[in-house]
């Protein structure tokens, strides 16, 4: 796609968690087309990333479902409205579009122009948890990485991988054949990664091809962003491990990110909205779900669903100022049933 040509649509939703997904449904019933932006590699937000297997008991009419089941059901429910997902990218800037509406640009360079922007970003976007050492910044992107973007950066290197989960072990096993040497540092001799990966790692350790260090990273050494050694605190004291690449996997954290600078009125780190339409201080920009604040706000998924329904009513007026909005029920309206694809 030509990146200079913006995607024109009715509604851009920032965040593909449960509330963002249900907003697609409410907007879709009114005939509005939606695009969603999310920094994760899949829809679902916290439900899919933090607690896919944990039970949720407070969704109306669903006595129990897991986080992932809730997302799967929402994805099925919004399928008729054919939303477009733009994943692995963060909503970066928001500015007024020429001729009205909003222009939103993502970290991947995708540009949207739409009369309505809906922020359903939960607790913010998921980003890798950075190494909390003052010197880390000097090495980040040069010899310290939180993800593998280009494998060539690691070939023939002396690599240290940190972490005990699937990301850490998968990359350890993938990079082992092409590394000059490779080591794994983890705080305990137990790993939550898939048992098969752990078994393969242990084999490589026994074969002398991977060095396993039980401890926690205490410091980084090197010049001009080039890592020379990592200091590791172990039970037996501090050790100095020589290496020139560090790949650290300490999970993801959530942060408000770029939208903190969009000129939105905030209340203790959340976006202040009205309770009629969940609109922010910027006309046509709405906030729903955990990220919005109003007196009495509860951070419940069901509250976010309600907020999305009311938001869609006002969003319609921005998207279709010439048209009249008639309130209808899915039970009785042939028009809504056509949109849902259950009636020809």
């Amino acid at each position, binding site marked *: 796609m030509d990146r200079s040509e913006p995607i024109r649509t009715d509604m851009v939703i920032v965040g593909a968690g449960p509330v963002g997904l249900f907003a697609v449904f409410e907007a879709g019933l009114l005939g509005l087309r939606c695009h969603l932006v999310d920094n994760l590699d899949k829809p679902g937000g*916290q439900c899919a990333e*933090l*607690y896919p297997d*944990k039970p949720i008991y407070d969704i109306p009419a669903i006595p129990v479902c897991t986080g992932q089941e809730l997302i799967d059901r929402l994805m099925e429910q919004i399928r008729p409205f054919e939303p477009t997902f733009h994943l692995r990218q963060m909503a970066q800037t928001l500015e007024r579009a020429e001729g009205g509406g909003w222009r939103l640009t993502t970290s991947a360079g995708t540009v949207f122009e739409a009369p309505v922007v809906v922020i359903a970003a939960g*607790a913010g976007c998921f980003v890798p*948890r*950075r*190494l*909390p050492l003052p010197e880390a910044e000097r090495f980040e992107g040069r010899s310290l990485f939180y993800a593998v973007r280009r494998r060539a950066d690691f070939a023939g290197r002396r690599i240290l991988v940190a*972490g*005990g*989960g699937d990301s850490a072990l998968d990359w350890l096993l993938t990079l082992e054949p092409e590394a000059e040497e490779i080591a794994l540092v*983890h*705080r*305990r001799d*137990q790993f*939550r990664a898939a048992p098969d990966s752990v078994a393969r790692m242990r084999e490589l350790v026994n074969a002398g091809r991977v060095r396993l260090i039980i401890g*926690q990273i205490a410091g980084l050494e090197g010049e001009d962003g080039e890592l020379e050694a990592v200091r590791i605190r172990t039970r037996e004291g501090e050790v100095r491990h020589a290496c020139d690449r560090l790949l650290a996997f*300490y*999970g993801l*954290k*959530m942060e408000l990110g770029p939208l903190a600078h969009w000129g939105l009125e905030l209340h203790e780190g959340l976006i202040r909205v009205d309770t009629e339409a969940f609109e922010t201080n910027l006309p046509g920009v709405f906030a729903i779900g955990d990220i919005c604040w109003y007196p009495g706000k509860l*951070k419940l998924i069901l509250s976010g669903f309600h907020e999305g329904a009311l938001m869609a009513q006002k969003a319609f007026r921005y998207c279709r100022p010439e048209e009249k909005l008639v309130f209808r029920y899915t039970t009785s309206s042939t028009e809504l049933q056509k949109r849902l694809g259950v009636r020809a």
Partner: protein
Amino acid sequence: MTIRVYVTDREGQLHELEAEPGWTLMEVIREAGLPIEAACGGCCACATCHVYVDEEWLARLEEPSDDENAMLDEAFEVQDNSRLACQIRLDERLSGIRVTLAPEF
């Protein structure tokens, strides 16, 4: 009965908090307005309610679950007395417990 909890914040200030039986330690700390992120809301899915439990109280707690240990893998400055506050359910036997907030990252 009211349960007393003593929390040392990251500036070294000691806070005496009161809790009802059945609350988690994270909830007491959060309701008191102390800076504990508790991003996942208490379902043991993050490591942002990391605390250090005073040695004398540590042995009175149940052992951390596999889930809790797995989440502690994503924390920093983990020590032998590290726990996730959302996984410590308070009852009267724990009245007087002393903990320190771990550094925030």
